[in-house]
């Protein structure tokens, strides 16, 4: 079926394996695999033929158990990892005609700085803990080509305000902040270059419930206000239910089911998805 909209991000047959592969596990489909692990050569097939589209202004949820390949997928999309095979296209880069994975590392850096934002589960990966909070934002702005201190200062303040970090604490380093505040600084940093696509990797995992709620509310309101497209990875179906319009279910590196979020929750098809949904408290 041809779509009536153009996707913002399109991922096609993304594959990522750790290890060389061997004649026994070639293509990651052989029966010698235990789950997605080859017993002969030790290769792990973390992502197997993952394809999806993300449309303007939508939240695409990706759910799956630990080890299902969700984070590897996000790392590949943000160039933290090199893919083994596959393609990704972003509409606002070269008209969506160039495979991002085949671009030079310099171009990939450009895409990271201008077109994508990412928030990591672990703030240590997304923030410089010893820089000031506003300095963290300025870092991303500089990377995106900003050089006017006054403008960066006001943009940084605006963003921290938006994520409810008190202005008088903007010069404090994130290492003095609580986990929830660190996540909010990360979100502000990720938003600083107005990315059309935001990648959120387990952003509320490990936060206590009330803090989790404030981060989720923030994401929802930002999405509504700025109309950015979000890829939201979580193992928590509650988070997915609250935020995602559509959802992919991953297991052992593969997308085993996809659909409208209420379809996944009310009419799950795959045995694993059924088990997952029925485990929901």
């Amino acid at each position, binding site marked *: 079926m041809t779509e*009536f909209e153009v996707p913002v991000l399109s991922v096609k047959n993304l594959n990522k394996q750790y290890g060389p592969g061997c004649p026994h596990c070639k293509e990651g489909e052989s029966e010698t695999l235990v789950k997605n692990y080859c017993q002969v050569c030790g290769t792990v097939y973390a992502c197997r033929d993952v394809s999806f589209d993300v449309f303007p202004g939508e939240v695409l949820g990706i759910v799956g158990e630990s080890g299902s390949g969700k984070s590897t997928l996000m790392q590949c999309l943000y160039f933290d990892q090199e893919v083994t095979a596959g393609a990704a296209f972003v509409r606002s880069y070269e008209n969506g005609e160039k495979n991002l994975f085949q671009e030079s590392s310099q171009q990939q850096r450009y895409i990271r700085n201008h077109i994508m934002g990412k928030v990591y589960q672990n703030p240590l990966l997304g923030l410089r803990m010893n820089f000031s909070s506003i300095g963290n934002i300025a870092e991303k702005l500089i990377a995106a080509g900003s050089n006017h201190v006054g403008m960066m200062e006001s943009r940084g303040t605006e963003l921290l305000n938006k994520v409810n970090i008190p202005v008088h604490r903007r010069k404090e380093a994130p290492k003095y902040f609580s986990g929830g505040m660190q996540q909010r600084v990360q979100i502000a940093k990720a938003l600083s270059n107005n990315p059309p696509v935001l990648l959120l990797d387990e952003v509320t995992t490990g936060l206590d419930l009330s803090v989790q709620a404030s981060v989720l509310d923030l994401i929802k309101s930002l999405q509504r206000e700025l109309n950015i497209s979000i890829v939201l990875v979580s193992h928590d179906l509650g988070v997915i239910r609250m935020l995602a319009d559509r959802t992919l279910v991953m297991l052992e590196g593969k997308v085993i089911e996809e659909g409208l979020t209420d379809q996944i929750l009310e009419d799950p098809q795959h045995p694993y998805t059924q088990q997952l949904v029925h485990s929901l408290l």
Partner: protein
Amino acid sequence: METLLEIKDLSKSFDLHNLGKHIRAVSHVDIQLNEGEFIGITGKSGSGKSTILKCIYGAYRIQQGSIWYHSKKFGRINLAEASERQMLYLRKHEIGYVSQFLNVMPRTTARQLVQQAILEMGESKSFAEKETEKILTHFELDQELWDSYPTTFSGGEKLRLNIARAMVKKPRLLLLDEPTASLDHDSKIKVKLLIEQLMNEGTTMLGIFHDLEFMNHLVNREYNMQNGVFS
């Protein structure tokens, strides 16, 4: 009269893999719904009534049969084959669903909930604010509740809010899944008034009712379901 919705040979079953069970909910159902019509479906609970509505709304996957809907945006479209994005569009702009359960975003006030429904359709903020107050007033939702979270509401209040949220969009097709269950007499009359108003404005409706008396005064035609088929 134009046909707005045509269900042909719809069957739906559930495979519960972990329990090794196969449950057949609906078998070979045909319904034709003309523009402006209001059809009621009656039947015991468990007879498959809600399943039909959920198939139309896309909350259940359609495995067998077709549901042809005449969309303003997409023309004649088989909802069984519509893309996820098309379904999302139709939910925002054309097809409304009211159930007896309010499924809301946590920490969202009644006012925000209704406003968001209007904003989703691309209306202006000032219009949304005005319409929200109008409909909340119509349903006599206590003003004190407007800026409270619906989780604290009584069953009747939740339901009225739920209906207000769906009706404020004036959908072309409105699916009503026992909208009056657990409502008191006064609230039922409110709902009825609004349904009549929507009918006058040309909204087509398909509804499930337990309250036959309520339904008989409203619907043009009715079907009775037994064990997943029309009797």
